[in-house]
């Protein structure tokens, strides 16, 4: 059962990675990146590394995604003004 969950998460990770790269809409890509982080959090937790899972949840999914989104919004507001 746990092996099936791990396999499903691995396939999800690969699909998400391809979607992140191939996406033309950058904010959409960032949100998919945060989803990638969330899936890897579950994977780390299943592989009994809760410390790494917590770090990934806080830094990989939270702060870095928000910093990406903020940067994109700054660039976009500048483009609209021009």
């Amino acid at each position, binding site marked *: 059962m746990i092996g099936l969950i791990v396999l499903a998460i691995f396939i999800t990770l690969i699909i998400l990675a391809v979607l992140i790269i191939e996406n033309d809409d950058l904010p959409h890509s960032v949100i998919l990146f945060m989803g990638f982080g969330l899936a890897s959090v579950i994977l780390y937790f299943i592989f009994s590394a*809760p*410390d790494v*899972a*917590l*770090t990934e949840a*806080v*830094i990989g999914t*939270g*702060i870095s995604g*928000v*910093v990406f989104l*903020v*940067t994109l*919004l*700054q660039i976009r*507001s*500048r483009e609209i*003004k021009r």
Partner: protein
Amino acid sequence: MNLKKEIRVSTLFVSIIVSIMTILLLPIFLDFNLTATSLGESLLKINEIETNSANSVTSVVTYFRGFDTLGEVTILFLSIFGIGLGLEGYRDKLNIFAYENRLLKTAVDVLFPLIILFGFYIIIHGHLSPGGGFQGGVIIASAFLLMFLAKGDEFSINHKIISLTEALSGAGFILIGILGVVLVDRFLGNFLPLGTIKELFSGGVIPLIYIFVGIKVSAEITALVEYFIRIKDVK
């Protein structure tokens, strides 16, 4: 995928070299007979004697590899320093995320102390449960991020206080290390009583180190987020 693209000579060259090296190194990788459990088992045995920390990952990060943690904290400080150096000229009071959302503004007033409390919980219980200084510090910084997003110009942080907090906590980390040299034999040595395992006051010097690391990381990430949110228009 565009197959019409010509393959560059350098790309072909690099890929040939990489494949040759892979074939040459493959026997070494296959024969690499590392008994991966030996180091972990010996660390766990030393952990019971020397640090008495319930979370053995924490004792590896802050006690056995405490010098590495000092290096990581320095790397984080240098990256934030570089961002501050690059973006200092573009700072402005205008915050582009000042949405007039009354629901968010009211909810943030309730959530802000709770998130900070949770961050301090993660920091202080770093030697008992998963988590620690880095994670708790970033959680505290995310509370400040929420305030920035919701309040806009009504909420601002004092950069002098932030940098003072960051400098004092970094100095505290190094002070603990030097006290380890003076009182015990080595840098970041344990000079406090170990206590009983799985209690809050246990693990010797580990909770103190993690408290300093947590405060330092929270100040740094808060400064980072503040720099990115308040950028003036470049024209």
